[in-house]
């Protein structure tokens, strides 16, 4: 299935609060043998990770950071899980792909159940569902009200990456992020020098599909600004 309704009552598993999340299960390679706990936190999130191509390319680029993909479609999540298990097994000797994993979940509803304030360095929104119909715009992954929640889990200076092949959606995401007081657009020059932009442009399955069809890819990156003084 290509779509899933983010407003439905899905059978979802999510922790009651971030402290209750059992991350050791997802990243066994990073478990501190003395405490049985993870030695670090997830700092990179790929929201709607699809088939996991982005994570797989980010993994060697950020070997010391934990990367989590979130995906709402069950079958797709199962596929990515299998894919990561296979990669870990095939690269067991080099201990690779230990820093990525995937969770089935509804990020629009339950992101704060997983991540505490200012936990994340980077959030990726790659080729999100465009929800063309006007009355379904609240189902889009970037809305002014959801951006406040993304700003909560991002640390100051953290980056939101967006890429899409739908120009209307690109304009929508840019205008909402630009209007949000906690985000500032990063320059084209910054984009050209950032390795994640390069990976994001070429790594994902959707991105490859667009490239095959010689379609356009629209990229916009935004920095999380410090909170203004509370009035």
């Amino acid at each position, binding site marked *: *299935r290509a779509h*899933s*309704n*983010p*407003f*439905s*009552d*899905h*059978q*979802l598993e999510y922790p*009651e*609060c971030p402290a209750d999340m059992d991350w050791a299960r997802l990243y066994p390679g990073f478990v501190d043998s003395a405490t049985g706990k993870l030695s670090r936190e997830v700092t990179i999130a790929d929201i709607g990770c699809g088939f996991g191509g982005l994570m797989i390319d980010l993994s060697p680029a950020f070997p010391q950071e934990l990367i989590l993909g979130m995906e709402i*479609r*069950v*079958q797709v999540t199962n596929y990515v899980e299998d894919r990561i298990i296979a990669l870990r097994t095939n690269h067991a000797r080099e201990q690779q792909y230990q820093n990525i994993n995937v969770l089935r979940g*509804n990020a*629009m*509803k*339950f992101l*704060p*159940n997983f991540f505490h*304030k200012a936990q994340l360095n980077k959030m990726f929104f790659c080729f999100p569902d465009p929800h063309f119909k006007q009355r379904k715009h*609240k189902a889009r992954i970037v*809305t*002014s*009200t*959801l*951006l*406040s*929640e993304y*700003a*909560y889990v991002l640390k100051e200076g953290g980056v939101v990456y967006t890429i899409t092949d739908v120009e209307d959606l690109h304009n929508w995401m840019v205008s909402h992020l630009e209007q*949000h*007081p*906690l985000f500032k657009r990063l320059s084209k020059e910054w984009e050209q020098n950032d390795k994640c932009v390069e990976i994001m442009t070429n790594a994902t399955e959707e991105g490859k599909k667009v490239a095959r069809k010689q379609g356009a890819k629209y990229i916009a990156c935004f920095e999380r600004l410090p*909170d*203004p003084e*509370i*009035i």
Partner: protein
Amino acid sequence: MAFIHPIQALATIGNDSIIFTVVKNVIMAFQQQSSGEYKQIGEWADTYDRSDSIKEKVSKEQERQIQENIKKQKDNEGNSVPKKVSQAKVPVPGPGAPRIYSCIRNLIVTKNGGKLISCADSDKSVLIFKIDLSNKTNCLELLKRQPFPKRPNAITISDDESTVIMADKFGDVYSIPIEGEPITNINEELDPILGHVSMLTDVLFKTDSKGKRFLITTDRDEHIKVSHFPQSFIVDKWLFGHKEFVSSVCSPAWKSNFLFSAGGDDSVYLWDWEAGKKLAEFNYSEAVKPYLGDNHLAPSRFQNENNDVIEYAVSKIVAFSTAPYVAFFVEATKVLFILKVDSEKETFTLSKTIDLPYNVISLESVQGDELVVSLDNRDSGNNDFVKFIKYDAANDDFTVDDAKSKAVDTCLKQFSNSEKLVVESADVYPLYSITTLKKHGEHYS
């Protein structure tokens, strides 16, 4: 048999010498006289006809579709072909369609007693009334009717009483000035100030010990979110702990950093919302057991083979104005629970159980350490509309004020021939809808 519809919502000014009630789609105001009797002093009925606005909406959507099709339809030369346009038809619900009720909900009075705020289901609007007690024929004057794209579910007023904060069924929160003209095109002119991706159930305006202002919003996904105000784009924190939906929150004037919350869980919770800490919970499942009945059985599609799955939820929790007590009730039960709060130890315990003759529908806290409840009195022969429950400080006890309750009942009884208020059994508005918020995880993918 026809009877006066039960009171769906209540509000009072200051002490309860003036009370406002919602019966069907009518707001009525009553004032207590020196004799102790209540007299009607105001009335407003929602006579809004939905068909015009539906027609307008249908025409607009039709226009949009035609415009979209024009772009697509081309003749052989590549020119666009205009299509014939017929008048938009207003859709009429077919047989068996769920009934549409034009209810009024959420009744609040500003602290200075000057304005009454409410919501109408008919056009999903927030209603702002001026309360003019010098007007002897009708004290309610509608100042503003602000329609919204989705149904308002909860409202509150900012501390300076200039702004109404409205939380809707779709998860968005809007801020609207009390003064000024209504906005005609909400989607283009008014953006939500914050939002959840879940139905909002309650909203509360709070000021912390440093004088900073906050909005507390609760939803069907167990979340209690604390955002700054007016910088509502900055989320301060979430209060995690509910395992089921949250239906109601309140914060007492006598301990401003305390927050009480309740909903589909077996417990009601006590938080320090400023520190972001859960302090205590009170499990009421044993206390409420004797009061549960057949109407708490889960709907058949969620039932087990023994047909004994019960579902219940707290409808509302309120704090007393000065005494360290909170009160709550479980939907479709004839009982009110009163908890004593120990501010030092930061705990609370059951203090008193008050049995009532009928199911409780609404609960409000009144100045002077009093509560007022309205009851589902449809079988009473137009008696027992409301009960006032007074805190007796001398004996540290609670008593039902029968005289005052009766005075309001007597006043309402006069309307037993009024077409506006009287209904047949089949026409009673859905009074029990909180428990239906429970999630069953029906959708797998």
